[in-house]
């Protein structure tokens, strides 16, 4: 594929009305509202341009794109002039050429003439345009120039060299329009105009979030990736999908041979429309980090040094150990954990190996600890375990309710789209115990209501919202009558109308003023289109599933389903949470969310897989740990997941891992779990393999191998080898064959194939005969439940067992930050640590004052489960009585404190509510010291493997 994407200069018009005009004697027919520049580009006529690019609204500042229009005066800019029917445009003649050359002469009079040694040589629009307009000489004798302006190298990923700046404002506009951060501006005026991050600060000290939109927009070397400065411009590009969050951005991996030079968000990517965040664009260096382990290793005990072995030996050893354990402890004594980071194909064959090869259903996935309540709650109410909309739907939303999610940190690219809609005037309701950036820290965006509830009281609040809607008769009765199960609705209506659910009654529980709840409920219910977006602040509770159901009830009662601008939208944490769940990675479900006991499905898979399958659900992750401590679960195959850091009550997890006889870890790093492992199978990063990821909007996007797997095999090949060694044959020659099998066996994927994904770029399931090109918005005609009707369910609020007491007077809740990702295994191995090098405990000034704690002080955080130590950050983002931390560093030990409370339906851990006490301390906790010693020991054992080989 070509190195660069065609730039039409201005965004496409969405008008359905067509206009025909004549450009240089050629006819062009384009949608009304199209610029003359884009119309010309559409028929292959390139008008010179510098300030225009099709990701940004036209600006009209460079003036290179002037044209002449018959019957019109002067020389209008083609980027800002809309087409008219019958218009006759001339793009090239002597007068235009003179003006363009005159402009270019001015540009070059203030530009260094170092093209040959410039990092943008060959990738510079200014250079291209100087050629296009035929500039041959600069006659000026300039006195004032910017040639000595100092470089700003503060950002680890890109450099800012104002001496090369042509003040086209593309960076400023990208920061505003695309990213919505408004960190850049033009300072000064006239010749003194210059790009200024915040108040003329270095980029790193400014409000810049390093999304890189400015770098991408820059037509010169002014803003340039340091990787390009170091390596030169890339020579080919491959479209693939980001492996970070659930937005699933499409990227062009721009390459030199097998080296990734830069990741550039793909303009045609339907999830991201050419935008990215600091992680996706810049934080790919982990893939070639020195910590990558590229040789298989085995050892008898975790006290032993690792021993590098051949793939054959490692696989055979792993298989023989698993077989040995099954022989000794029974068929059900082994299992596997897969990950939302794996491709669909990897997850699929993993669960196939376990169900058909291991002969049990002991397969679970990390979605257990994040979005399992989404799967449950939405399946029960709507009939399908997924969000209802595509991301673009938000552009039609009039009211947006964000519950327990922090999009600007967790889902930054979608947040940018949401902020764009909010800047257009959509109203915003945020339900969150903490003051997230969307509330009032995002320029030109402000929440109408911030329902700042106490952690753990989601259900009471959702019920109060529903109570207002029901008792104030704000329901969409037509929708309910036509689309929903009426018996369930009537029951729910009676239930929710009870006085105990009123905002006045729940105020004491939630801490949210009743008047705010009423106003927010009215705003949501009376909007033309109202959409709910939610995250782990909803699911990771003892009543996570109940809240999901409550949200579904709200949407059904108000008719906010089945059309653009509305819906229930879980923001998925990891790149393939949706996909890994779709692929049957839960112990009770085959691919496509069909219960293992369902006779027809059971038969289907037995026939397809030529194996006898168990019809009893297998162990969930926490059950595996329990069973390990009971000596009934002794072998684990864990791929791409770091349970020893990410799961709650970590001391319990560590004990369980120590109890197992064979732990097989397949990962790209020696992660925390691998420190307890006996077999290490080196994995491949997303850059090294083929497959697909499914994002939060059910979009199946291609993952493409851009470099060879460092350890020789792609992950699906490793699983296949293990399966064969276990005696269950698999013979896929390419992941596309795995997808073909998935399509054959899963109705909602029936129409999916690699051919189709390549053709369309991506496809949203359900994709089958009914929807051959996929389904952007679900439940448009009927719900996917058996009777086609949406089901209302009762949502009684039950307080969590985790309560504050005199000993544990504060509630700890957790979240994440923009620059780091999940357990941090990837992002900690990149320069993203420049933004976030440690997890901190956010504490309200009142609580800090009471404890004599100041910012940067070390504080001990003690819960019923354990104790850890972090540095304090005094912040009014948290409310009094609530403390908050991120969990990106293993030594932070956030999960030493979290408890074993979990969701009643799915066992999703209650990460978001832990009663703690915070005290000022002078040294690390005992656990941290133990962790440090253990970690050091394990690193030594790893080093010995390296020195032996």
């Amino acid at each position: 594929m070509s190195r660069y994407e065609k730039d039409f200069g201005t965004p496409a018009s969405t008008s359905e009305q067509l206009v025909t005009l004549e450009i240089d004697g050629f006819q062009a027919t384009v949608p009304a509202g199209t610029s003359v520049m884009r119309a010309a580009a559409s028929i292959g006529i390139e008008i010179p341009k510098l300030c225009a690019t099709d990701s940004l609204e036209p600006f009209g500042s460079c003036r290179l794109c002037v044209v002449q229009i018959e019957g019109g005066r002067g020389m209008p800019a083609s980027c800002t002039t809309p087409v008219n029917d019958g218009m006759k445009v001339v793009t090239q003649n002597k007068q235009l050429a003179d003006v363009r050359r005159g402009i270019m002469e001015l540009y070059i009079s203030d530009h260094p003439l170092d093209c040959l040694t410039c990092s943008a040589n060959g990738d510079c629009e200014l250079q291209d345009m100087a050629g296009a307009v035929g500039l041959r000489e600069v006659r000026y004798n300039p006195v004032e120039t910017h040639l000595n302006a100092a470089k700003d190298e503060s950002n680890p990923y890109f450099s800012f060299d104002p001496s090369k700046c042509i003040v086209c404002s593309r960076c400023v506009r990208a920061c505003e329009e695309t990213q919505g951060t408004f960190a850049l501006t033009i300072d000064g005026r006239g010749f003194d105009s210059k790009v200024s991050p915040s108040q003329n600060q270095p980029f790193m000290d400014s409000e810049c979030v390093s999304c890189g939109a400015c770098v991408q927009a820059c037509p010169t070397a002014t803003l340039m990736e340091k990787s390009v400065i170091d390596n030169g411009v890339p020579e080919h590009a491959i479209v693939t999908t980001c492996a970070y969050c659930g937005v699933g951005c499409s990227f062009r991996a721009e390459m030199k041979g097998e080296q990734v030079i830069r990741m550039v968000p793909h303009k045609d990517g339907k999830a991201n429309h050419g935008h990215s965040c600091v992680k996706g664009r810049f934080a790919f260096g982990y893939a070639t980090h020195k910590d990558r382990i590229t040789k298989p290793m085995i050892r008898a005990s975790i006290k032993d040094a690792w021993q590098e072995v051949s793939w054959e030996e490692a696989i055979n050893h792993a298989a023989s150990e698993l077989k040995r354990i099954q022989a000794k402890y029974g068929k059900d004594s082994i299992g596997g954990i897969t990950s939302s980071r794996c491709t669909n194909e990897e997850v699929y064959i993993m669960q196939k190996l376990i169900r058909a090869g291991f002969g049990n259903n002991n397969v679970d996935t990390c979605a257990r600890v994040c979005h399992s309540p989404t799967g449950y709650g939405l399946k029960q109410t709507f009939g399908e375990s997924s969000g209802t909309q595509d991301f673009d739907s938000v552009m039609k939303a009039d009211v947006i309710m964000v519950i327990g999610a922090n999009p600007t940190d967790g889902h930054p690219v979608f947040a940018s789209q949401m902020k764009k809609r909010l800047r257009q005037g959509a109203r915003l309701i945020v339900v969150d115990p903490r003051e997230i950036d969307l509330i009032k820290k995002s320029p030109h965006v402000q929440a109408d209501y911030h329902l700042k509830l106490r952690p753990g009281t989601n259900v009471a609040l959702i019920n109060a919202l529903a109570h207002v809607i029901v008792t104030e008769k704000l329901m969409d009765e037509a929708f309910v009558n036509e689309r929903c199960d009426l018996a369930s609705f009537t029951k729910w209506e009676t239930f929710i109308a009870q006085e105990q659910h009123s905002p006045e009654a729940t105020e004491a529980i939630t801490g949210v003023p009743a008047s705010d709840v009423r106003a927010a409920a009215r705003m949501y219910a009376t909007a033309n289109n109202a959409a709910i977006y939610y995250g782990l602040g909803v699911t990771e509770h003892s009543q996570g599933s109940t809240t999901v159901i409550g949200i579904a009830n709200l949407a059904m009662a108000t008719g906010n389903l089945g059309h653009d601008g509305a819906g229930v939208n879980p923001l998925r944490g990891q790149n393939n949470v949706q996909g890994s769940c779709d692929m049957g990675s839960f112990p009770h479900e085959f691919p496509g969310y069909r219960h293992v006991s369902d006779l027809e499905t059971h038969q289907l898979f037995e026939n397809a897989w030529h194996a006898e399958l168990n019809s009893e659900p297998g162990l969930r992750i926490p059950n595996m740990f329990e069973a390990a401590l009971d000596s009934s679960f002794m072998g684990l195959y864990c791929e791409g997941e770091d349970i020893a850091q990410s799961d709650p009550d970590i001391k319990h997890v560590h004990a369980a891992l120590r109890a197992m006889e064979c732990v097989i870890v397949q990962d790209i790093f020696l992660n925390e779990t691998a420190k307890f492992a006996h077999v290490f199978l080196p994995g491949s990063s997303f850059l090294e393999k083929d497959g697909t990821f499914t994002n939060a909007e059910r979009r199946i996007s291609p993952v493409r191998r851009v470099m060879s797997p460092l350890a020789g095999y792609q992950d699906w090949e490793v699983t296949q080898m293990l399966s064969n060694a276990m005696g269950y044959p698999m013979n896929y020659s390419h992941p596309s064959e795995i997808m073909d099998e998935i399509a054959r066996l899963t109705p909602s994927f029936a129409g999916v194939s690699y051919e189709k994904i390549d053709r369309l770029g991506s496809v949203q399931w359900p994709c089958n005969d009914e929807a051959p090109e996929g389904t952007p918005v679900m439940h448009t005609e009927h719900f996917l439940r058996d009777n086609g009707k949406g089901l209302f369910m009762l949502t009684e609020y039950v307080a969590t067992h985790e309560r504050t007491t005199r000993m544990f007077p504060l509630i700890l809740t957790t979240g994440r930050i923009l620059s780091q990702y999940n357990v941090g295994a990837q992002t900690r191995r990149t320069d993203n640590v420049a933004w976030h090098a440690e997890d901190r405990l956010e504490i309200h000034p009142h609580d800090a004052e009471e404890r004599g704690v100041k910012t940067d002080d070390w504080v001990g955080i003690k819960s019923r489960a354990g104790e850890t130590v972090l540095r304090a950050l005094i912040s009014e983002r948290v409310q009094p009585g609530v403390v908050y931390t991120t969990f990106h560093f293993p030594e932070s030990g956030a999960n030493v404190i979290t408890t074993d409370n979990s969701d009643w339906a799915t066992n999703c851990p209650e990460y978001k509510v832990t009663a703690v006490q915070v005290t000022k301390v002078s040294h690390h906790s005992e656990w941290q010291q133990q962790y440090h010693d253990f970690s050091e020991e394990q690193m030594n054992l790893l080093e010995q493997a390296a020195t032996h080989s």
Partner: protein
Amino acid sequence: MSITVYVPGDSGAIALGANQVAKVLLQEAEQQGLDIQLVRNGSRGMYWLEPLLEVMTDAGRIAYGPVQAGDVKSLIAADFLHGGAHPLKLGVIEELDYFKRQQRLTFARVGLTDPVSLDDYLQHDGFRGLKNALNMSGADIVKQVTDSGLRGRGGAAFPTGIKWNTVLNTASEQKYIICNADEGDSGTFSDRMIMEGDPFVLIEGMIIAGLAVGATQGYIYLRVEYPHAEQALNAAIATAYQAGYLGDNILGSGKRFELEVRLGAGAYVCGEETSLMESLEGKRGLVRFKPPLPAISGLFGKPTVVNNVISLASVPIILDKGGDYYRDFGMGRSRGTLPIQLAGNIKHGGLVESAFGLTLRELLYDFGGGSASGRPIRAVQVGGPLGAFLPESQFDTPLDYEAFAQIWAVLGHGGIVAFDDTVNMAEMARYAMEFCAIESCGKCTPCRIGSTRGMELMSDIISGQNPAKNIPLLRDLCNTLLNGSLCALGGMTPYPVLSALNHFPEDFGLDDQADAAA
């Protein structure tokens, strides 16, 4: 019975000592027990006579000037309160030749009335236009303005009625009227004079504009350097609200118009209508591209009338006396009157409102009395810092938009700045580039870089460096600015530069015009 004495509160008069005159006059009157009533009127526009003191007598308003504080005692001694003879006595103000020869329509009340007195305004035909307008449809008001032939007095001379009609016909829940009072052209002061001297006429014009197009909110974007105008406008607006001319029920009609004054932040380019709107929205004063026209998508994206002070202040008389009355003044397609401002090296600087058609020569010599220095007038710049320089050979050009366009000049906002024969026109050309460089908003490339390069280039030319290379380069640069600039700031800077070069090549070190054209 007290005697009314007028001492202008106009800031031009104040700069010349009017406040001291007023202060001493009041002191002396109190000490001597004279029963006077002091009115701080607007200026009559004869600045060489300011501070110009007037006293109401049975024989009419007798003028004395220029009066300094030290003259007050002698004036009193000469019984000026009854028109007594004094060396500074000028006679009945309306009979002064400079004044008498004018046709004051827009400035009819300026200098005559107490600017902030609603009663005075009403007694002198004020709000008659509004009362008519309240009984008319929007379309009928627009028709009157269209029929009057009024064209934008800010400089672009776009027909006001056509602009209003566009706003009238663009459906929107909210529309705006903006008065562009960011009067920044060198040598112009008519906006300031009318805002200080008759603020009600502007308010009335804006209300009528609002009624015409269906706008309920008006803003006066006033340059921050006009503090006296701000005071006068705010006082008049407060009075108009109290008396029911502004607000949600104009004179009981049920119609609504709100008005407020917003101060600019001191950038010339904010007098350009699109950057003015950016500034009014709270942003950097950056020029917007057109289309969309402000009339369709203007302030906050809503249909907006942006008119100059004089355009709006001319509306009340059109609505009072009819479009045809106004149209009867003027020549060709330049209808009505133009308030001309004479400045620079001129003996009788000031404001002359007259129907279009006067020649420059009449203005410079019959009104202006020739140069202040007594030397020959060599050149005049008409239309502000972006206007062309005209040599003596063009002084017979009539004031008419089309006649000026024919000689590649502009009338602009009606400012005329005279230069005598000591002027170096190459320096003036350099200054034009420098002005552009200082005031450029920095958005478009030709203006942002070209103005600085132009300034440097003119320095080279003035110092005689390589004219064979530099003169053609100057012409190329002017071509780029003229055709490539986003707005008139860069787009019109070539007018003064090229007119200076073409008419005065000798100042550029060239032998004749042929060299200049080479």
